[in-house]
């Protein structure tokens, strides 16, 4: 019999192992179901045929996701008001008005506006009167590739705005208009940028995102004929950035369950249990009972024994991850499809990949612990501590420090904000795994790049495993 297959199957031989696995899958099903139910309830609670608006703020990535939903063909407008500090960039899609406040002296403010449809109107104007009002209207494919080559004359005491259509080569592709604003005044100036898409109807979910910046305040509220009902029925978000220094657990929970297919919370919360249980069965209990002792005396190297066990644990986690993620995704898909499905399909592969990479790193760490100790209770105790450190404490610390850094323009700067954030990411393999996932989602901006996140995860995988092998080769059984 193939030893790897044997070691894999061995874990499902006893009834209590099977029971544990069944319970695990039930928990996953339950979580997927609850997540779906939560979203569904939120939507169906709206008295106005499901119209509503809510936003979710992710304290880790500093992204704000807004959802506007309504019945098919229903017109629903929303408006966002954003205050910006110097150097901030904002991207917004859908209808809305941005009020830019420009400080004195010559400053250029490129503001990118994502447009989800190929027809629409963007205007930018300064009520101060200096400069020019520019309007760019586009409605036909022939205009999409166009852009503005206007030469901006820099003079004194004026506010100038220009709009450049920068992206989109084909009809139907998302467009981006960039508003250039220059203030040469000695006084602050304001520029109102209006985004008006024509024929916008909200059917199912519409997603917009705003990248949070230092001192950014964001308010979103429905407008138009359904505004009152939509406001009362859903969750209008009024987030003040500074109030979010401590991660809002409920928001993160909803974010994890809804945005990332329920996957990441499960990755962070439940897969370590499978990894723990499999390592306990493969190494610790077998050391304790003496099963490994007889194998060690066989003409096989200790490295070979450890690696076969490691791979069997990895195989177990991978199989459970694929089954559980698929079930979780399927539940979300089928229960949410009547309302539209906000979860990107391309996320599935990244979800599996990051799940497995995180768990391989965790297996390496647990195997290292398993080779260092001999008793099940010691292993359980240290594993729980390890879990707490890597899956709870470090990510939370990362959040808090990141928030402090984001708030660093405010008075009373915390010394924590000087800590190098990337270094903290490398300290924590679940956060690296999350970064792999975040990198794979087009509308999210990752804190560290994909190659760095993958390399960091691999280092976490390889080094503890190498140490485990070294220890295992010198261990008494």
């Amino acid at each position, binding site marked *: 019999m193939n030893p790897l297959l044997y070691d894999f199957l061995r874990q499902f031989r006893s009834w209590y192992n099977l029971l544990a696995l069944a319970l695990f899958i039930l928990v996953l099903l339950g979580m997927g179901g609850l997540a779906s139910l939560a979203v569904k309830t939120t939507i169906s609670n709206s008295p106005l045929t499901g119209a509503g608006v809510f936003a979710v703020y992710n304290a880790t990535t500093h992204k704000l996701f807004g959802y506007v939903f309504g019945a098919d063909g229903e017109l629903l407008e929303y408006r966002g008001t954003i205050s910006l500090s110097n150097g901030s960039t904002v991207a917004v899609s859908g209808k809305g008005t941005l009020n830019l406040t420009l400080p004195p002296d010559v400053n250029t403010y490129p503001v990118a506006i994502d447009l989800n449809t190929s027809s629409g109107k963007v205007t930018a104007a300064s009520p101060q009167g200096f400069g020019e009002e520019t309007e760019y209207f586009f409605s036909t494919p022939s205009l999409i590739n166009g852009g503005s080559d206007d030469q901006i004359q820099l003079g004194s005491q004026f506010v100038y705005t220009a709009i450049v259509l920068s992206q989109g080569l084909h009809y139907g592709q998302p467009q981006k208009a960039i508003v250039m604003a220059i203030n040469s005044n000695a006084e602050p100036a304001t520029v109102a940028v209006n985004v008006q898409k024509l024929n916008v109807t909200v059917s199912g979910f519409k997603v917009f995102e705003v990248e949070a910046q230092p001192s950014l305040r964001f308010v979103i509220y429905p407008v138009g004929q359904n505004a009152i009902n939509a406001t009362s029925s859903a969750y209008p978000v009024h987030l003040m950035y500074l109030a979010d220094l401590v991660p809002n657990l409920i928001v993160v929970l909803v974010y994890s369950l809804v945005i990332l297919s329920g996957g990441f919370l499960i990755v962070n919360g439940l897969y370590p249990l499978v990894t723990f249980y499999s390592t306990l069965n493969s190494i610790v209990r077998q050391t304790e*009972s003496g099963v490994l002792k007889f194998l060690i005396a066989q003409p096989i190297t200790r490295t070979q024994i450890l690696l076969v066990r490691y791979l069997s644990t990895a195989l177990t986690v991978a199989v459970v991850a694929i089954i559980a993620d698929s079930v979780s995704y399927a539940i979300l898909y089928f229960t949410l499809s009547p309302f539209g499905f906000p979860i990107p399909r391309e996320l599935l592969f990244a979800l599996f990949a990051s799940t497995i990479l995180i768990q391989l790193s965790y297996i390496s760490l647990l195997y290292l612990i398993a080779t260092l100790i001999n008793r099940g209770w010691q292993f359980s105790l240290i594993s729980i501590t390890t879990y707490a450190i890597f899956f709870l404490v470090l990510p939370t610390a990362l959040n808090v420090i990141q928030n402090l850094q984001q708030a660093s323009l405010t008075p009373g700067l915390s010394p924590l904000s000087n800590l190098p954030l990337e270094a903290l990411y490398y300290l924590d393999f679940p956060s690296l795994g999350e970064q792999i996932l975040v990198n794979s989602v087009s509308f999210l901006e990752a804190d560290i790049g994909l190659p760095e996140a993958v390399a960091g995860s691999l280092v976490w995988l390889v080094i503890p495993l190498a140490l485990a092998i070294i220890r295992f080769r010198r261990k008494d059984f």
Partner: protein
Amino acid sequence: MIEIVELTKVYRTGGGIRDVTFEVKNGEIVGFVGVNGAGKTTTIETAVGVKIPQKGDVRVDGKSILKEKVEASKLTGWVPETPTFDPDMRAEDYFLYVCGLRGIPGHEAKELAKKLFEEVGLSGHERKRIRQYSQGMRKRLALAISMISNPSNFMFDEVLNGLDPEGIRFFREFALRMRKENVAVLFSSHILSEVQNLADRVVFIHKGRVVKVATMTEIESMSKTKTFRVRFTTPESAQRSLELLRGFGKDVKVEKGVVVIEEFNGDIEGIARAVKSFPDFLEMGWATKTLEDVFFETIGEAR
């Protein structure tokens, strides 16, 4: 041939073995005796590569267990006192798993399983789960797995413990058969009568150190005494013979109905004539020590 050279394995508690040195030649059964905690199991487990020594080495047919573990293990069969396997697995599956780890192809492994299960008397029990196996059956399974590579050396660690008479006979006969086949057998036990019946040489270990290595001939000579015993069918005759026998040794007394003559002068013909007049005289002869007596004398000296 098993050569154990200055093997040292000291635990944090202070127990363990120190500078253990002896050898087991091909075609020889060496008894390895000592009280509980003397270091028998530590020596054997270090010799099979389960424990890592601080000093010394074990060479099996010239292969070092530390430097050439895989080769040395191929040449060694080991049956521990309480072999432990995955209790939920079927015996044959476990055997095939070990074959798989050792790189033996499936069909060859199945043939080996059939042959070796039969050889160790487990035919008909292959598909049982190991948790259903008795202690004796587990030891037989360990033996079957040990025999996969047809090793030329065996180490049995207290293998007779917990076995029924049939099991004891099986392992005793197996050891004797291996000796005939020129295999080196190290046989640890605290059932000294069994060791006495089986072994060609005996290694005494006490508090982690080898205190004596002796051949059975040497042990037999050590077991001779200067005490002579004369037995009668009735204790009364023993008591009456005391006066007559007093001249044959320094101290003549009756112990449990037997006349015991310490420092016997060797006049066997004379004593034979003397007891002839007693109609209920039964037998007489030199008192000998058992291996147990020799063992306790030896460890007593070691103290």
